[in-house]
């Protein structure tokens, strides 16, 4: 087994573990962490795919996709955290 395939499989397992986390957790912060982990799993699958080409040089397109994906994921995470803070504050005000 090549290390690219191994890491792809690890990515698949991460997605599965995170899927369990998203369903089984109930705190939004934990769900958010699980979603980030799921994203990491998906990225790992993608980068694993980039290596499965003949030749030494990996395919740059999945790399670019992952870089874009990371930016999108961090932006969404940061917004989700802002939303969570706001919600917690409103809950506190309303008692």
């Amino acid at each position: 087994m090549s290390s690219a395939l191994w890491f792809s499989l690890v990515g698949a397992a991460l997605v599965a573990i995170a899927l369990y986390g998203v369903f089984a957790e109930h705190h939004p912060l934990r769900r958010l962490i699980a979603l980030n982990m799921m994203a990491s799993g998906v990225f790992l699958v993608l980068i694993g795919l980039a290596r499965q080409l003949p030749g030494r040089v990996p395919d740059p397109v999945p790399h670019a996709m992952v870089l874009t994906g990371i930016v999108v994921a961090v932006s969404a995470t940061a917004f989700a955290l802002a939303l969570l803070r706001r919600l917690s504050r409103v809950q506190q005000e309303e008692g």
Partner: protein
Amino acid sequence: MISPVLLFDLLLGLSLLWLAWRTLAAHTLFEACVSFIVFGLLMALSWVRLDAPDVALAEAAVGAGLTGVLLLGALERAERARVEAAPGPWWRRGAGLSALLLFLLLAAALITLPPRPPLPLQEALPLAAAEHPVTAVLLDFRAWDTLLESAVLVLAVVAAWSLERSVSPPRPAPVCSEVLRSLVRLLLPFSILSAGYLLWRGGHAPGGAFQAGTVLAAAGILLLLSDLRRPFDLRRGYWPLALLSGLLLFIAVALGTLGYGGTALDYPPGGGAALVLLLELGLTVTIALAFIALFSSGRSRGDE
């Protein structure tokens, strides 16, 4: 005998899985956050092993740095949030079963994946506006994606701002120790230097706007966390223009090329490298300011 390379990869993969599990099973939110930071660190090592230094750089900046700060910054409020009731045992069993099925499906798909036709990169790369393949994809072949990515960044900031009730200045950081101050004083020049270095490298080697912007954002957040500088409000003055610079520059370049040659983002011959550098500069500023704004939103005086 197993080679050390293989052993390293096996151990790294297994620790990722174990850590993922421990993160989800953590008793407190703080534990979950800390485990997730370590998870990011191991992810960066995995990118290295997969010959993806660009992604490793990004992960080192985001996973090991930025996400941790963001999570820890929200922890205080998150702990006080009221949440829905925990799901029942049958729900958990169902979740476990679907996770298992998903894994089996994915594993089967990945193992049986047929070889795919390669992209015509050999012919295209010499014509691209950047030497480094990943930068060429990001800012030339698939520049349209990157334009929209900068829109996502700006949108996230706007979305976070729209949550706030009042436009009051951010609350000053609590008084901090001399140790922190001198540390920050020491680190700031280094951060700015490395950001410039990463940006410059991006044209021909791993690195680029995203990594540089994140380092700058980290420097800015450090400034906010220490009380070296009065808190500044990114919603006032020229800051919004700076925040939007990456997006607006990108749109301007797209419209300019549209008017010049009839195809959006088709750089004129000879001008590609300069335009890409311009776009990278704008993106760096947008990324840095967006992360700083996202970190500091919701911490206004009126809000906390």
